[in-house]
């Protein structure tokens, strides 16, 4: 039985009257890619924001590498890298300068920060663009650098919040490739998406979220077999069956 790296217990978060996250619990094992699937507004991003210590849960707690995100947030932050759903880049800085800046923020110093920045730029295929201003990048290139920044400092746990949303197939394939490389290195990943085929391809286990709650959690294969032959059924069908709604409408 692999070690439990992230344990989320009964997380709640409301914005005014809206319950964005309503009692979410799950566990991610070391080296696993765990998918959070769900339609717009399901509460995926809110869950990640709580786990990455940006937002304080109204109720519940989680531990990352044994450190509580409430009581020991500083220690938890040392283990994580976040690729936010909304691009978070300095448009007036070059790709390399962005990488170095955030590298320093996660405690890298001296030569190491530059070495890692170049290595991660290469991983996402942006070596040639290292010196170009991020503001002039295409959407796909911005997504890739957004992901590359999250890798600075070699975090043990990555939060990837819809890293492929709205980009060209080429950039998308590059990101899939990057994630598979990271899995091979044994990095633990929490991945959110509303593309079911993405979850199918990348995730070891998925939790399907709707209305702030997890309504199903298993391996993609098991989820598909629940409603029929796993070879013909898609995760879309699973969602439709569970909620009576289409995933994207």
């Amino acid at each position, binding site marked *: 039985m692999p070690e439990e790296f992230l344990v989320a217990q009964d997380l709640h978060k409301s914005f005014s009257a809206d319950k964005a996250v309503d009692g979410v619990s799950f566990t991610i094992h070391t080296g696993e890619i765990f998918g959070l699937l769900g339609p717009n507004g399901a509460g995926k991003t809110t869950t990640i924001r709580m786990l990455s210590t940006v937002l304080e849960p109204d109720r519940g707690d989680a531990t990352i590498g044994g450190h509580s995100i409430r009581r020991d947030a500083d220690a938890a*932050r040392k283990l994580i890298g976040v690729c936010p759903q909304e691009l*978070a880049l300095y*448009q007036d800085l070059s790709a390399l300068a962005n990488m170095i800046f955030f590298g320093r923020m996660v405690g890298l110093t001296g030569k190491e920060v530059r070495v890692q920045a170049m290595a991660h730029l290469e991983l996402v295929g942006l070596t040639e663009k290292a010196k170009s201003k991020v503001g002039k990048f295409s959407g796909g290139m911005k997504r890739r650098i957004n992901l590359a920044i999250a890798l600075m400092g070699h975090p043990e746990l990555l939060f990837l919040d819809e890293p492929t949303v709205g980009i060209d197939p080429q950039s998308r394939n590059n990101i899939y490739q990057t994630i598979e490389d990271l899995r091979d290195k044994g990095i633990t990943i929490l991945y959110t998406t509303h593309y079911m085929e993405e979850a199918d391809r990348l995730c070891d286990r998925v939790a399907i979220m709707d209305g702030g709650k997890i309504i199903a959690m298993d391996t993609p294969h098991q989820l598909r077999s629940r409603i029929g032959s796993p070879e013909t059924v898609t995760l879309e069908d699973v969602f439709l069956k569970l909620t009576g709604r289409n995933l994207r409408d």
Partner: protein
Amino acid sequence: MRALVIAFREVRTYLQDTADLAFSLLLPIAIFTLMYAAFGGQLLFQGTAHVVNEDPEGIYSTLFLERLRGIENLEVKLLSSKEAEERLDRSDLLLVLRVPKGFSNRLASGDPAELILSQRGDAGQEGQIVVSLVRAVAEEMGEEFKVREQVARALAGRNISQERTETVLQKFMDRERANPILGVQEELVGTRPDPVNMFLPGIITMFVLFAITLNARTLLEERREGTLERLLTTQLTVGELFTGKFLAGLARGFLQTLILLSLSQVAFHLFTPLTFAEILIVALIFAAAVSALGLVIASVARTEDGAIWIAVFFTMVMVMLGGTFFSISQGSPLYPLSRISINTYANDAFKAIIAGEGSLTHLRRELGIMAGIIIGGLGVGRVFFRIMPGGR
């Protein structure tokens, strides 16, 4: 360390933003130039003596006009007799000085000579001053003639060449004019009432304060761009974040003041090296106070627009009450209100140093109040950042 990285990035962005730079450097220079042009000339006497010289070849008339030209702030303009009459008739001129024909010859032969001042009405304020200046020069020359005459009489029959007497005497009188036994020294009481000291500090502090908008914006811009949230997932502490933003604002404000003060030094030679160092210390403390206040606004406001409006309102009030364009004296009903403006203290300190009236030890009160604003601002900003949503 991380705080420095944050500050450095921001200062670099500022230096690359031509609009921000123009606003914080070119605009104050332009406004100061306007103020200087509008009020600059009025504070010192500047006059013209209109002269009709009917003795153009004479040595004494030439000498007299030379001495007149030597007076600071007095310009000598020659006119023809006809032109002078016409302009006096039209009241275009209120005073004309006439050096009559034979003026030099009469003096040379020891006869009394006269200068004629034709004035219209009371000759106007400028005319009256010109009259006194002309009188003073005439009296000075008269005294010299008297001395010459007495010396010549005393030496009469002693077989000393007249040429020699003349040169020795001339040397004597030149020396006397250069170092008079009874001199007059002009001294100004209070701050120097010149336009530089009147407007320069106010305009500089006003624009440093305007930069508060930049300070207030940065944190909110990062909130909008998502970089703030990303920073909050790294090992950066909020203390470091605040320190970085504070240092960035301080550096911007100080750089701005440094450039403006250096330019003023080149243009007006206001400072000795010591007073320049002193005024830079005041500038540093003021920039720090402004930066801290910017952080308060950044922590309270939810949107960039909100921050800009708070900052604009705040700076307007501070600039108005800070005696930027007019001084607020102790008796004025505005005086107690002016005490709540941070600009008042900065302007007072700047003016005192420019006027050479105070070293830093005399400015303890002003500097102390600004230091208090720094500490209070950082504390209040930090508290607001904790309690407002999305903060920590």
